[in-house]
């Protein structure tokens, strides 16, 4: 099953809507709630990243009986040094964004922790694509 959601950059009031919608689907297909929680947290972080840094984004969710693959592709400034961006606490968020409780520099590391596989590709000046895979049965990994 494929589901697509769009994300508008800068719209903090709606950050989390995609995660909520996906959470409902995960509940409906009876994913273990611990695994479902990881997926939703990882997706939420990805969603907030797009809202905080990019102009717009598209989330593609592909679910089969073995895994959930989430691809978050945005149009935005991109990341020049992915390794550095992965470090906990590293953040390029503006003071305004931080004031709203976002941009603590934990996003990407949180996404990595809550997914079974993560891959980031980015072209500075164009955008970033994050792929997340979570296996439905953890032992199938």
């Amino acid at each position, binding site marked *: 099953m494929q589901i697509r959601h769009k994300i508008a950059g800068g719209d903090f009031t709606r950050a*989390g809507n995609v995660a909520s919608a996906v959470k409902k*689907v995960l*509940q*409906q297909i*009876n994913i273990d*709630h611990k695994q479902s929680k990881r997926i939703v947290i990882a997706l939420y972080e990805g969603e907030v990243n797009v809202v905080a840094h990019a102009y717009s984004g598209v989330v593609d969710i592909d679910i089969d009986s073995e895994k959930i693959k989430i691809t978050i592709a945005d149009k935005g400034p991109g990341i020049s040094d992915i390794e550095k961006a992965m470090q906990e606490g590293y953040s390029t968020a503006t003071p305004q964004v931080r004031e709203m409780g976002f941009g603590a520099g934990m996003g990407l590391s949180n996404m990595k922790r809550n997914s079974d596989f993560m891959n980031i590709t980015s072209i500075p000046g164009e955008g970033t694509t994050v792929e997340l895979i979570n296996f439905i049965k953890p032992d199938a990994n």
Partner: protein
Amino acid sequence: MQTKKQTRDFHHALAVQADLCTGCTHCMAVCPTRAIRIRNGKAIILANRCVDCGECYKACPVSAIAVEQDDLQMIFRFPVRVILIPSILIGQFPRKIMASSIYNALKEIGFTHVFEVENTVDMVIEAGRQIMLENKERPVISSFCPAIVRLIQVKFPSLVDNILKVNPPIDMSAMYYREKLKMSGIPAENIGLFYATPCAAKIAAVKSPVGEIESAIDGVINMDLLYNRILNYLQRKYTETTPPETDDLLSSRGILWSTTRGEAIHSAGRALAIDGIQNVNEFLENIENEKLDKIDFLELRACDESCAGGILMSGNRFLTVERLKNRSDEYRAREDDKIRKVQDGYLDITEHGFLGNIEPRPIEKLDEDISAALKKVERKRRMMCYLPGFDCGGCGAPDCQTLAEDIVTGNGQISQCIFLQQQMIKQNLLSQSQAVKITGDIWGKERLEKNCNKIGAENENN
């Protein structure tokens, strides 16, 4: 002692009285877990979804939702009859009515012992602090409101481990007083312990406890019944009766425990208090996404103004809270502010203070098997392309998505939608008489006939 073992099935204290129900859909629209459908012109409650919050009871314009209760006469089976009253019972009466008069009224009604539920609140605080030190999961969610515990079990299964596994005051007090009376030489079988309840959720919790093996309570008496009986007693001339047995364990903290923020103010760290089940629903929805691990404690209550707004409460909830604040201030003025440890040995918190495992009971799954469930989700999403999205309730389900879910799980059919029915008739997929039958199955045969006894009609209330 009558005990009820925890079973897979939930006991519910709310039931639709079919003879009174007019199938008006008010309850269906407000139910936070989408547990109500209309069939044959009457509301039905789906047992696996209901959390006994009482929203349907509040919304019903014809008082067709009944709250189960034990017969007051059953107390007389026991020589020693103990009533545990929550502080809100006294808060409902004007300030000039002394607590002692209310105790005397309860004596006249038939109880030999009167204790306030919140007498053991200091033990609850103590047990809670112990567990917050051991359990690193944040935020910790209070186990006080049984409707909220059940809401989390069915709708927010990923948060069950966040529930504070401490017995709420009612269970703590029931165990404490049973032991204390036994130790005073009363044979165990002579003691009947009863609880005056402000809501349906507490009844359901007593009848089928969650996370504990058995309930120590023998019966539940609804607060509205007691309120009327007490008022009757007070309006008659005060006859001098010997007061019931009681003690003085109540604290300023206990008096406010069941009001909003009553628990949260005693929590270490950052604590939030939220009341009203729709507010709680919205908040839990958010915290499932974000990791709000910087909040230490959540006090969540199903009713507006917490227990003062319980469905079996007769007094104005805002005035009730005001009176409890005044009463608490009076107590505070004459107590030292330390949390008292009740160390009289009647109840060992490490043995009896804690709840067992609370199991998730997810209701949203469309199938146990993931592949089958995936197909059902796809079918549901396809179906939503056709359903109108008005959420009118005309199909007997609260909204279009629920109808679609009912259809893919075999509990409904697409022709229940009154708009799609018209389309189907036009395309010769459904005959006019089939459509009439389907509508009749949902709304009852007499539904569309003239009836002037409805609210707002010519012979209203006749």
